[in-house]
């Protein structure tokens, strides 16, 4: 039971509850955003819908569907898929009387159902982290837009004088970089290291902390200039962010080569009460060293 992975899936009822939760969050966020009466909100909604729809147009996925269904059926399936995704946005835009945008979104959703394209272009996204092993190189390329969003939120936080939003932006960066350490890498990329398990962990943590801090720096600078009186809070949050990132990396290798399981998840959750980290970090560290010993003999 404790060896179950988080991705193993759960009872279908959890899925229904999750769908209900997502719907509620969508409605809540929509009400909140439209209450701001910004002219950009409807466009952001239309783009968000198109972004989600574009994820369904990936070539490999469509090739598979084409293989499974006859031509006519395939088109029906694709149109249905796109409209299911677009529907909440379409309904919302129509309710808010943005009829032209509603129509455009509806038409584009159908047109995009009939197109398929490659999701992997031959464009290499530049990354400042290419000199250190792969987590940040790959992670940055997959999620650079999250940092744009975080920096945007930090600017908005200052503009609307909302310090908490700034802290949220900081949290978003740590959350994103922690995601780079979610999945266990292929054992070859651990085996290939010329070092002891402790050194390996030290190098991984050092890189993660350094690069995460670099990514946080613009937000930290902006917030410290604007909220000099809250600099203590800012530093505490940054320190906690770095501490949780360290714990997460150790949790990952304590389960290695398996994915982070329920046991590690529960222990990490206990660590959300920060004093518990004094026990949890050494625990994960010793477990990680033991796991890595098998490969880094």
């Amino acid at each position: 039971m404790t060896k179950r992975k988080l991705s193993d899936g759960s009872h279908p009822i959890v899925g229904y509850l999750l769908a209900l939760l997502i719907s509620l969050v969508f409605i809540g966020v929509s009400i909140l955003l439209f209450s701001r009466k910004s002219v950009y909100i409807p466009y952001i909604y239309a783009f968000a819908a198109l972004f989600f729809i574009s994820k369904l147009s990936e070539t490999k996925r469509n090739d598979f569907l084409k293989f499974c269904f006859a031509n006519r059926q395939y088109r029906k399936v694709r149109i249905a898929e796109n409209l299911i995704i677009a529907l909440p946005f379409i309904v919302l835009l129509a309710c808010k009387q943005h009829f032209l945008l509603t129509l455009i979104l509806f038409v584009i959703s159908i047109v995009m159902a009939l197109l398929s394209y490659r999701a992997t272009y031959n464009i290499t996204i530049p990354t400042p982290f290419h000199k250190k092993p792969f987590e940040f190189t790959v992670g940055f390329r997959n999620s650079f837009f999250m940092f744009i969003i975080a920096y945007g939120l930090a600017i908005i936080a200052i503009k609307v004088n909302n310090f908490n939003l700034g802290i949220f932006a900081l949290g978003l960066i740590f959350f994103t970089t922690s995601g780079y350490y979610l999945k266990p890498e292929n054992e070859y990329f651990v085996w290939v290291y010329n070092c002891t398990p402790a050194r390996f962990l030290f190098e991984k943590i050092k890189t993660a902390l350094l690069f995460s801090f670099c990514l946080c720096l613009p937000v930290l600078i902006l917030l410290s200039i604007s909220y000099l009186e809250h600099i203590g809070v800012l530093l505490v949050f940054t320190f906690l962010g770095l501490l949780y990132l360290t714990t997460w990396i150790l949790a990952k290798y304590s389960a290695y080569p398996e994915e982070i399981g329920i046991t590690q998840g529960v222990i990490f959750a206990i660590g959300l009460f920060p004093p518990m980290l004094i026990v949890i970090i050494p625990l994960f560290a010793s477990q990680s060293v033991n796991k890595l010993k098998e490969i880094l003999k």
Partner: protein
Amino acid sequence: MINIQNLSKSFGAKQVLKNINIQFNKGQVYGIVGENGAGKTTLFRCIAGLESYEGKITSEINPLKNHLGLLLTEPFFFTKITGKEYIRLLCNVRKKRVSNIDDKNIFDLPLNQYASTYSTGMKKKLALLAVLLQNNQCFVLDEPFNGVDIHSNIIIIGLIHKLKELGKTVIISSHIFSTLRDTCDEIYLLKEGELVRKVFREDFEALELEMREFTVGNKIEKLELE
């Protein structure tokens, strides 16, 4: 240089390597042949230390793992990492600095493109190039010729000769007999996890003929192709 004594390996109840004894010497090229599932890859993984095993693998280089270039049958690539970054990654972790990677791109690979977009053969060549640039003492190459074009095949054969000249130990597996004939000093035959035969260079031709006879036999006739 690498001495394997009484090596056995089981996965559950299935024994995949049975009491293997081999000695791999410096400056020699060794071929491991056998049917699919004979235990070649498991043997390589045991030598690399990627599998636990019964028996002993010793080497005058200690730890062997840190001086071993391992080419896997199907090298793994991250989705958004370029060929150049892959090479740099594998060399950096072995504390080997490489400069002018473009000049060393003997396989003419598009090194600035994501490696995951490469074809099977290109991936193999990239992984081999990275392993070679690590400047290891021993090389364990699992099917280095698999999926690789003719020109690159010739280059790889040349590279193996060069490694031999430099006094490195090379262990390769291949399903293409001609490549083994062109490169190896000795060939070991694995059958169902057992080392059934050791063949020296002068007997390669006889081995090839024998294998052809045993393997093909009258199997083709059984299809009754018209």
